[in-house]
């Protein structure tokens, strides 16, 4: 929702931290704070040093409002590891999809599995469907409740209309609820009033082609609207070790957004909708009980969906704010082995108000109904093909000013879901600003990843192991549903420090220690001989999801940004991560500790954004991603270059080269390896025309 959730969970009361107008109770708190936390008070000051009272009226009237200020100010003030990818960052990265735009974010691992698939995770546990990361687009969760995770091929919009992407590392469950375990990604689009007029863009290169149109105009009743359409086509990538990867992908999307009311007004109403499809071919392994024990089929894979969302926000007397959001989201996906149709209804209400000048409370409630329908195949059967699930939750978050420069945020989510019952996800954050140039923060929070249908409802034939040694019959490995599978749990401890070294140099450091328990483990059950006469005699080896692995992850993320000249920005992000897991041995479970080797230890990104003249951008990005031993992925360097020229108002040409250092490299894997391909060098040109 527009309020605190989009802002990493913590919104400051305008009055909080402002001297004066505080009652006696606050001074008591101040004293407690001074004793307990040595939060030394210091004079409040606003975020930028321009003295507005020294300016001539002509200058003031001509001054432009920093539109991103609220975000940025919130970012600076937030006691969490937050990184904002701005609209400009996206444009200048040359990225052509949302996951590609996340490569520059510290603590985030983005790996392209093939032309249409990405593995994206925050602080480890990456996977084709990384299940510990919650992703929202304008307040709509796109987390898939069949497999747990995000299908990135259907998460897209016009990049020119994206206001920013907020990436929160660390748990966000206190506000967002289950599955916001290791992080939250919020894609926030611009209001319709900010995207008026027409836009046409065309992109063509050796690996892809993209066409997009958007038009924004006035809506009846004093509002604004925009409509857009986008088409993406991606060429085959390279097969591992060379050859054609045969994974070409195409996708189309259309949508709209309309807004009524404006910031500062009493009521704001937003409506938006999307419709999309995504098509690609894939290889599908089919286990057989007789030699050659497996066959590979090639088949088309389709996904499609649509959604409609409305949000109403009202500013009430006394600075209070209430908002209600509702949406319907339909998705369809054909995975070959099964088809999944899903319909979600989500209703969310939030209310925030200052209880006192030093205390702001946010409360919220949510109701969600998920209707999920599965169609199987000989390899996939289900405990329940159709299933309806209800989720009810509520949360509160209270932000207390202990002193002018010290804030305590307490909150908890209380949730009931049909898989595990009640989940409590509390969090405590503290923030100390010893002067405007420093921010120190710390947090402790609990978050859970709740089970999904793949663990509770689905039976799959995974593979056939041919007879070997003294086992004379083939072994059929099958995934069996297990309704005893419980939530995975995290307790996270975080510390952060931000330093404004000088007006042009900024550092942001975050460190974390994550303590995991009840992690998903693929546990082997006792094999049984099947000799019913229909199939050849074989052993069935069942695998079920259990909660038998525990462990820790710790890491550090450092961002340094330097703007030596107005026309040059240099930024760098370094991330370190280590995961230590303890799971059952290999005769009990399949690779219980494999997540240790599925995320890189080291990641580095160096960026330079240079404007030699105002009409020209020259941008470069150099990244290093460490090896993934679990997948036999070697560490790799990646260089992207971009040049853009704004010929005249509204018309821009750009040329982008990506992955310039090698002809192709592999970034990840997936269970069968069949659909993993190499990311190749790509070059494209783009024209954008606004009118």
């Amino acid at each position, binding site marked *: 929702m527009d309020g605190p959730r989009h802002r990493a969970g913590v919104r400051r009361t*305008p009055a909080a931290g*402002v001297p*004066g*107008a505080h009652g006696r109770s606050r001074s008591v708190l101040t004293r407690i704070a001074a004793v307990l936390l040595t939060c030394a008070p210091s*004079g*409040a*000051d*606003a*975020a*930028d*040093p*321009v*003295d*507005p*009272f020294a*300016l001539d*009226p*002509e200058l*003031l*009237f*001509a*001054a*432009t*409002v*920093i539109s*991103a*200020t609220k*975000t*940025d*100010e919130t970012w*600076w003030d937030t006691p969490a590891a937050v990184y*904002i990818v*701005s609209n*400009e*960052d996206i444009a200048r990265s040359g990225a052509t999809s949302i996951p590609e735009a996340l490569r520059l974010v510290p603590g985030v691992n983005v790996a392209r599995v093939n032309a249409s698939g990405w593995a994206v995770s925050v602080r480890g546990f990456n996977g084709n469907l990384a299940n510990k990361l919650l992703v929202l687009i304008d307040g709509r969760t796109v987390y898939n409740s069949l497999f747990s995770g995000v299908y990135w091929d259907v998460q897209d919009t016009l990049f020119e209309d994206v206001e*920013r992407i907020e990436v929160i590392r660390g748990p966000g469950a206190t506000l967002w609820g289950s599955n916001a375990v290791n992080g939250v990604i919020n894609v926030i689009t611009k209001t319709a009033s900010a995207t008026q007029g027409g836009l046409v863009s065309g992109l063509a290169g050796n690996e892809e082609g993209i066409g997009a149109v958007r038009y924004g105009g006035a809506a009846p009743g004093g509002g604004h609207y925009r409509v857009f359409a986008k088409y993406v086509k991606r060429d085959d990538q390279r097969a591992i070790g060379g050859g054609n990867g045969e994974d070409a992908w195409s996708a189309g999307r259309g949508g709209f957004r309309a807004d009524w009311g*404006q910031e*500062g*007004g*009493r009521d704001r109403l937003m409506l938006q909708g999307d419709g999309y499809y995504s098509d690609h071919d894939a290889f599908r392994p089919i286990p057989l009980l007789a030699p050659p024990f497996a066959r590979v089929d090639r088949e088309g894979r389709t996904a499609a969906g649509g959604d409609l969302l409305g949000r109403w926000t009202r*500013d*009430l*007397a006394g*600075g*209070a704010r209430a908002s209600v959001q509702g949406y319907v989201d339909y998705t369809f996906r054909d995975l070959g082995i099964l088809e999944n149709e899903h319909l979600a209804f989500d209703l969310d209400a939030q209310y925030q108000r*200052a209880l006192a000048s030093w205390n702001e409370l946010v409360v919220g409630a949510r109701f969600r109904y998920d209707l999920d329908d599965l169609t199987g195949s000989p390899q996939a059967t289900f405990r329940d093909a159709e299933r309806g699930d209800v989720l009810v939750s509520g949360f509160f978050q209270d932000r207390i000013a202990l002193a002018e420069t010290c804030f305590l945020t307490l909150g908890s989510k209380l949730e009931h879901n049909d898989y595990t019952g009640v989940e409590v996800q509390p969090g405590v954050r503290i923030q100390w600003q010893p002067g*405007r*140039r420093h921010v120190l923060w710390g947090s402790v929070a609990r978050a859970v990843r709740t089970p999904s249908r793949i663990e509770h409802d689905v039976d799959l034939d995974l593979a056939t192991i041919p007879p070997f040694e003294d086992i004379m019959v083939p072994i059929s490995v099958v995934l069996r549903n297990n309704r005893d599978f419980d939530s995975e749990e995290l307790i996270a401890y975080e510390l952060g420090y931000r330093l*404004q070294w000088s*007006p*042009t140099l*900024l550092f942001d450091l975050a460190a974390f220690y994550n303590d995991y328990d009840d992690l998903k483990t693929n546990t082997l059950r006792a094999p049984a001989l099947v000799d019913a006469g229909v199939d050849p005699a074989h052993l069935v080896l069942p695998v079920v999801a259990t909660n038998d692995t525990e462990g820790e992850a710790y890491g550090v993320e450092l961002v340094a*940004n330097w*703007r030596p000249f*107005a026309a040059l*920005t240099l930024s760098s992000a370094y991330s370190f991560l280590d995961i230590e897991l303890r799971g059952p041995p290999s005769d009990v479970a399949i690779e219980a500790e494999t997540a240790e080797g599925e995320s890189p230890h080291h990641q580095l990104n160096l960026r330079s954004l240079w*404007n030699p003249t*105002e009409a020209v*951008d020259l941008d470069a990005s150099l990244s290093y991603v460490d090896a993934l031993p679990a997948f036999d992925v070697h560490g790799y360097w990646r260089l992207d270059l971009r040049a853009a020229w704004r010929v005249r*108002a509204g018309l821009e040409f750009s040329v982008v080269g990506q992955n310039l250092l090698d002809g192709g490299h592999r970034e990840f894997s997936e269970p069968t390896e069949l659909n993993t391909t190499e990311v190749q060098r790509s070059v494209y040109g783009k024209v954008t025309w606004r009118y």
Partner: protein
Amino acid sequence: MALLSGLGPPRRKARGVLAVALASLLHAGSPGSGRAGESLQMMEQKIKAGLLYNFLKYTEWPRATAASAVAVCVFGDDPFRGSLEPMAERTVNRRPITLRHVREVPRTEGCHLVFVNAAERDRWPELAAFLAGKSVLTVSDFPEFVSAGGMIELGQKGDRIDVKVNMAALASAGLQVQERLLRLAHVVDAGGP
């Protein structure tokens, strides 16, 4: 860019000049946002706080309302995020400025300027009735403030603050705003409260 515009620069006033320069340079660096040095980029609250100060400076109150200090009152919650407080350290036409936070209509007695928090728009008619006939400059940033009889409305047009001045309301309060400001603002004649 997001991070850089979020640089919370140092607080010392001595750095103000540098920051002004930096702000205009930052502005120049963002594509499509205009020519270098054309204008400052500032937080919305700061621009509005600076405008309030200029309204004080360029408005003439009837002699009868002269007091030892000029009282600036914020009606409702303070939306300025701390940007207004430093104004109390300044003087206007050699008189000190006092800042007051007011929640009840009668408490606006003695105010020279009342800024109405946009969230209090429902109470504006009540406040307007109370202020009728008094020489109090009223300012707000809720839409249609001047149409509802307010004197100065702070709106936004594109990325600039748009100021509307209601001449009739000023006249009926016996206030005069100097030409230097009126040239910069949009003058409307929306009638008194």
